[in-house]
């Protein structure tokens, strides 16, 4: 059991525990800040999957952008949201949540079963990648290659994403503007 494996289990525990807390917490603000920890833990898992650039992007965009947006949505939507939360003073496992818990747990069981039956480590293309030395090693620098690929092989998706981002920007501005002479 080397240190990478220990770190993986620690990170996986942090991610899952904080995600469970997010799902179970009654306090919305606290659950948003626990979501912050989930995202950081996921960035750690990306590093362990040897994707350092994705990990940094995760921290910059998710933790810096998305989380602040969610906090904004919470702060701007006022006290009513808190009132809704305080009405449900039941325990974590109450009867009306039982179907959802069952559904999620059964879905998890099915997915784990499928994953173990598939044996992702023994898929032909992964074996071939390991055999032909195409898997990323711990000492490889991937950022250069990602930049080159982004500008050559994946240029079309890149441009499509940029157009979609612009549309989302215009749409969000349109939705959020104050209507003049509104009905």
């Amino acid at each position: 059991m080397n240190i990478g494996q220990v770190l993986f289990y620690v990170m996986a525990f942090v991610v899952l525990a904080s995600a469970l807390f997010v799902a179970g917490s009654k306090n919305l603000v606290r659950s948003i800040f626990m979501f912050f920890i989930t995202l950081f833990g996921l960035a750690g898992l990306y590093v362990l999957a040897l994707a350092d650039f994705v990990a940094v992007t995760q921290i910059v965009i998710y933790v810096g952008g998305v989380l602040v947006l969610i906090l904004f949505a919470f702060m701007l939507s006022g006290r009513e949201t808190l009132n809704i939360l305080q009405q449900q003073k039941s325990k974590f496992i109450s009867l009306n949540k039982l179907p959802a818990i069952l559904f999620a747990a059964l879905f998890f069981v099915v997915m784990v079963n499928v994953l173990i039956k598939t044996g992702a480590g023994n898929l032909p293309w992964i074996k071939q990648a390991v055999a032909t030395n195409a898997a990323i090693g711990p000492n490889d620098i991937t950022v250069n290659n990602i930049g080159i690929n982004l500008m050559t092989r994946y240029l079309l998706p890149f441009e499509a994403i940029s157009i979609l981002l612009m549309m989302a920007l215009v749409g969000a501005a349109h939705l959020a503007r104050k209507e003049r002479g509104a009905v």
Partner: protein
Amino acid sequence: MITLTDFLIVSAALFCIGLYMIITKHNAIQILIGIELMLNAAILNMVAFGKFDRITNGGQIFALFAIVLAAATTAVALAIILNVYKKYRTIDPGKINNLKDK
């Protein structure tokens, strides 16, 4: 050695937690967080498989695209939630039952 299946199981668990949140919560922001959890599970899968592709880097690049798309989704969802709050004074999706012209 961390195997691929370990990553996939963590991501499956994350996905199911997101699913649970989407089903049970009565608050649009918490549902949004559930959607983000499910998106992150998908991104974790892509990154885990991208480890075996050093030359074309498909998994990592599409993980980047998915992160950017999630940011765009959140921005639009925030605008929608604020508008809904302005109109209904609540963000419980169960109580929002009118189209634009009532």
